[in-house]
């Protein structure tokens, strides 16, 4: 039986954002894990390309600045 890993090497998590029309805002469609930006781009495209997005972008999760989290006031 195959044992699946998310990534080999140093893993960085990326959030994937996309939208179908210019009128709608970008929203999070998922995440990928990759050791660098190039591979993250390739993985995001391969994983989330099933819909006709007019825009897709990825951002390193560590670069997202959180104001508060669930459960915090």
């Amino acid at each position, binding site marked *: 039986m195959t044992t699946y890993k998310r990534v080999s090497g140093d893993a960085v998590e990326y959030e994937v954002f996309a939208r179908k029309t210019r009128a709608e805002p970008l929203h999070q469609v998922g995440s990928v894990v990759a050791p660098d930006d190039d591979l993250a781009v390739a993985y995001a495209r391969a994983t989330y*390309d099933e819909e006709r997005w007019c825009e897709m972008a990825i951002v390193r999760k560590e670069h997202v600045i959180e104001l508060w989290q669930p459960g915090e006031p």
Partner: protein
Amino acid sequence: MSLSDLVLSIADNKQMLGLRYAEWATRAPSLEADIAAAAMGLDDLGHSRVLYGCLEPLGEDPRGLDRESDPESLRALPYFDEPWSEWAQFVAANAILDAAFTVMIEACVNGSVEVLQHRLRKMLIEERYHFLHGRSWLRSGINPEPLNHAWREAIEWFGPPDGEIAALHKGGLLSMGPPHLRTRLEEQLETRAPKLQIDWKSWDGVRRRGRPGAIDRRTFEMLRGLDERKPEAV
């Protein structure tokens, strides 16, 4: 050799590349890499269909009746004759050979033939993701043997400096000839090809490969839709 022969060579190679990518869709080092292998396989099989579809408007279809019965009638590189047994072979094909085919497609798109300008342009966009995937894995370091193997076959596939590809470039049908194609590939990959001695006298100019051979009969029948891949016994 005509431009149709070249387009058929790109099509046959992309068909085999797509098949070999797909074989790794459950064997790559990570789940993301599995998905990427499947997606790239689908892309390249799709590209091969578009390329076969260009043969008729080009006015000359070099496919003979032997393509129904003879695996050696296919014009794919020796690199695709056997399934890849290690991930490094996948990476070398992805980084070097897939990029070499893309550089040739770029030469077609920027050449003077309208049908190729229009129909092949979208491939360049899709191939950008294959390139990023291959280059990233290449940078992570792989066994040099398949890498040298892939470089040799890419340079052989571009052909001799004074061969038919050079003539197609001279006639304006392609925007690049063999030396430019090689330089463009090296620039993209930010690396130099290894020093290679190529015996052009024994090189097969129709199949664009340096040694004889072909895929096995079963794979050939599967490509023709006459056989199915059976699950391996556990």
